[in-house]
């Protein structure tokens, strides 16, 4: 809608939006009603409370006013009777007169009555007194003084003293004073202030006063009506309540004293109990330190505090009794007419309530004392031997505090000591467990040794734990490797055969030898179905060139290691079956897990010789390579020494792996590869023959010249340099010309000459070997 646009509704509707808004407004209206109701209720409550308070005030004031009015009436009546001889009827008529005067002129009766009594007394006539009261009212109004002052002035004039009237403005001449014409003076006074009281009464101020007087009179009327009831209350108070309270105090005073005495005794006794207990604890603190802490925490904290609280309640209660007693005195005074009724009632009520509170507090104190007493019995600490006095107890309190402090400190120290003691005991127990018997359990050296032993044991345990974790981790890694290997195997045997190339690839990938790959492959397919058949064992034994038992053993170890580790049960089982020690089982397991082949694990007889032969061939190959000979051509045996090499010799040995297929001989399982074990050799070499040949080889440790290919040993006695003769210079050698000056007469002279020449050459930068210098 555009701002400022005029909208003209053509059709309107009640929609759900309107209904929701209506519901909200209704709810709001309901809340407003509730709020209004609450406010009204509160207002009415306040009004009611105010009304009640006002009513009470009216009642109290009316009673008070009635009492005061009754007193004023009594005094006036008594004065009139004495001075004027007025009768009761005259006195009653006077009250009516006073009531009329006060309502007319706005002067309270409490002021009128004394004035009337005074004037009547002076004139000895009630009628004259009433007339002069009217004059006094005019003087009061005209002279702007209170009625008492005006009455005094009039009274003095009656006695011949006109000064007061003259001071109030009455034009009394000296002649009149000298003549002492009272009637003339009074007439002049009346003339001077004529109508003043009436005029004043019509002023707003005095109209209000008249209204107040009327209200007060009503209150006095109410109070007068209440007085008989209150008088009856007074009678009950004086004859019933106060004597009952007095009787209660008389009868129960001794009991109260007894309660207090008992309480004090209990306090002292309880203090001794505390002293005794803590003294005992302090004496045996090493034993009772814990008990002391518990005692201080629970007994002192709860029981004593409760008892002290009860005593404090007693003190407050007795203080309240004192205050209430003052109230009671006030009540007594009220009963004798010396105080208002309200104060008297309040005082009695307070006293009664205080007595009730005292009863409750005393009862609670007794209960707490009983609890303390029973608690003391439960603790079984005897007080029989305690003969101290209260003063002794009080003196001991300071010491008790010190002991308690020490106890607290000892508690902490002993706690640490306890911990150390416990640790020591554990260490000693551990030593005993290891067969070590300490000679003295308090010897600090032995204790320290025990502690260190504990530490060591703990460290060893930790090391074992770490080792176990590492072993587990290693096993996990091996298991992971096994899984990878198995996965690789599944990949390469997907075509149901494994080629030599695949074996080589796996060998390189797994970082193990080809034999290990073949052994592993055979084993994994033998055990992957969860059982090892005799046929598989036999086939693998043939392939691995080991016995059937060894193949069986290898496969069982292999199966047990399929998770990368051996459990205790597996170790025991293998050790029992194969009559091995646990260590041997562990060794076998490690080797198999490291990929050692069965043939390497259990070498066949003659394998050692074959190995030496192989090593010799390797040495020869290296020699041939070093000599620069071509290995393609058959090697002609060296003419110098040795035996001709066997025909068909090749410097490298190849271990062929033939692919196998299902149905081939040696095939194990659906994908088990057929592995050809490495053939040692097909030559006619024997070990001993080889050794003899080697023994006959020329050894060139002392040097020599070789002009044709020759199998020889070099370096057998230390480092040697093999240098072709035609390349002596280019391979680091140099010619040193030594010129000897003078005669050489002996071999020593020649050696010295050569040494000097070498040193000279060395100084010139020529490379001279140490050997040369040592000539």
């Amino acid at each position, binding site marked *: *809608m*555009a701002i*400022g*646009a*005029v*909208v*003209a*509704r*053509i*059709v*309107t*509707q*009640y*929609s*759900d*939006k*309107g*209904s*929701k*808004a*209506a519901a909200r*407004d209704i709810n709001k209206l309901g809340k407003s009603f509730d709020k209004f109701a609450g406010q009204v209720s509160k207002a009415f409550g306040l009004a009611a409370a105010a009304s009640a308070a006002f009513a009470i005030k009216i009642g109290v004031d009316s009673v008070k006013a009635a009492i005061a009015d009754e007193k004023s009436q009594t005094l006036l009546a008594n004065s009139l009777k004495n001075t004027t001889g007025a009768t009761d009827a005259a006195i009653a008529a006077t009250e009516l007169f006073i009531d009329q005067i006060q309502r007319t002129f706005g002067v309270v009766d409490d002021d009128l009555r004394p004035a009337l009594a005074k004037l009547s007394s002076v004139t000895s006539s009630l009628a004259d007194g009433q007339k002069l009261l009217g004059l006094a009212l005019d003087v009061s109004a005209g002279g702007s003084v209170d009625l008492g002052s005006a009455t005094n002035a009039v009274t003095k004039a009656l006695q011949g003293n006109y000064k007061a009237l003259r001071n109030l403005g009455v034009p009394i001449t000296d002649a009149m004073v000298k003549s002492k014409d009272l009637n003339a003076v009074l007439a002049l006074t009346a003339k001077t202030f004529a109508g003043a009281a009436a005029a004043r009464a019509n002023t707003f101020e005095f109209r209000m006063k008249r209204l107040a007087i009327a209200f007060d009179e009503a209150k006095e009327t109410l109070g007068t009506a209440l007085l008989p009831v209150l008088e009856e209350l007074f009678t009950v108070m004086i004859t019933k309540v106060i004597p009952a309270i007095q009787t209660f105090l008389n009868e129960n005073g001794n009991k109260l004293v007894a309660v207090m005495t008992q309480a004090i005794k209990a306090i002292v006794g309880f203090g001794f109990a505390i002293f005794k207990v803590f003294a005992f604890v302090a004496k045996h603190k090493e034993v009772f330190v814990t008990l002391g802490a518990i005692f201080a925490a629970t007994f002192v904290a709860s029981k004593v505090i409760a008892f002290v609280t009860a005593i404090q309640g007693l003190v407050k209660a007795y203080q309240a009794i004192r205050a209430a007693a003052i109230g009671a005195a006030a009540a007594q005074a009220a009963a004798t007419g010396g105080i208002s009724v309200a104060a008297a009632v309040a005082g009695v009520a307070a006293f009664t309530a205080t007595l009730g509170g005292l009863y409750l507090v005393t009862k609670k104190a007794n209960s707490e004392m009983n609890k303390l007493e029973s608690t003391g019995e439960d603790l079984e600490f005897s007080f029989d031997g305690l003969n101290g006095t209260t003063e002794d107890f009080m003196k001991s309190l300071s010491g008790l505090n010190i002991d308690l402090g020490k106890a607290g400190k000892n508690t902490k120290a002993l706690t640490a000591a306890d911990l150390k003691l416990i640790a020591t005991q554990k260490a000693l127990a551990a030593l005993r467990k290891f067969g070590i018997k300490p000679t003295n359990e308090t010897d600090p050296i032995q204790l320290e040794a025990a502690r260190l032993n504990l530490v060591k044991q703990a460290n060893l345990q930790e090391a074992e734990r770490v080792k176990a974790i590492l072993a587990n981790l290693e096993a996990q890694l091996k298991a992971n490797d096994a899984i990878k290997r198995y996965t690789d195997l599944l990949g390469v045997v997907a075509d149901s055969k494994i080629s030599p190339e695949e074996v080589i690839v796996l060998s390189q990938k797994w970082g193990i030898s080809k034999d290990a790959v073949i052994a592993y492959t055979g084993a994994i397919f033998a055990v992957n179905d969860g059982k090892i058949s005799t046929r598989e064992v036999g086939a693998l034994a043939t392939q691995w060139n080991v016995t059937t038992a060894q193949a069986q053993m290898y496969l069982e170890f292999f199966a047990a290691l399929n998770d990368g580790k051996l459990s205790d049960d597996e170790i025991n089982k293998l050790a029992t079956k194969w009559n091995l020690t646990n260590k041997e089982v562990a060794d076998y397991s490690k080797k198999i897990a490291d990929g050692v082949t069965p043939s390497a694990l259990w070498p066949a007889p003659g394998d050692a010789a074959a190995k030496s032969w192989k090593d010799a061939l390797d040495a020869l190959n290296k020699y041939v390579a070093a000599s620069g000979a071509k290995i393609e051509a058959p090697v002609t045996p060296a003419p110098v020494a040795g035996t001709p090499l066997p025909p068909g010799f090749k410097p490298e040995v190849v271990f062929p792996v033939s692919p196998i297929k299902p149905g081939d001989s040696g095939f194990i399982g659906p994908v088990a590869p057929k592995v050809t074990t490495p053939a040692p050799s097909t030559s006619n070499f024997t070990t001993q023959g080889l050794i003899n040949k080697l023994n006959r080889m020329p050894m060139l440790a002392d040097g020599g010249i070789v002009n044709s290919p020759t199998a020889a040993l070099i370096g057998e006695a230390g480092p040697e340099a093999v240098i072709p003769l035609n390349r002596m210079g280019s391979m680091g050698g140099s010619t040193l010309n030594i010129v000897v000056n003078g005669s050489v007469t002996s071999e020593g002279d020649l050696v010295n000459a050569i040494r000097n020449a070498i040193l000279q050459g060395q100084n010139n930068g020529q490379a001279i070997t140490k050997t040369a210098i040592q000539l």
Partner: protein
Amino acid sequence: MANEVVVISGIKETTAALKKFDKDAARRLNKVINDELRLAENAAKEQIPDKPPMSGWRSVAPKNPRKTTRGGEGWPAWDPQAIRQGIIKTRSEGRVRADYTTSAGALFNKTASGVIFEVAGRRTPGQGTGRKMIGNLNDRFRKASRGIWAVIDRDRPRIYANIRSAMDDAQKTLKANLNKEKG
């Protein structure tokens, strides 16, 4: 401007329910309402005179308006075309009013000059020149509510009757469909 408000209950609900059973009936109801609104809109536009209501009411906006007038915009020009374009019908519900109703169809008079023409003198007879302007407007046209409200006051009985009739038909159709649905 009349204070009378015609409230028809259930237009929205009836239309929504009717769409489930008889869309043609819902369209007929909407068409009646829209037609009445269109008629009212056109009639209100006809209330706008082509010439300015008074000779001094210029037809172009002031170049240098007095800043004390209309927030500094000056007295709006009398452009009958723009004023008529500013009178549009709407069926937007709008806000909920104090009587918990929403609009089911209304006319807007959106332009400043159109609003002045519509309501000038509605609350107070004005003072000075304003009083004279209001008096002239009252004499030449009618008292306040001279545009859209004049049309509505005039045509309200017909509009109400037509919409009420369409509503009755729609509710009958709806009831028949509901009975049919109940079997």
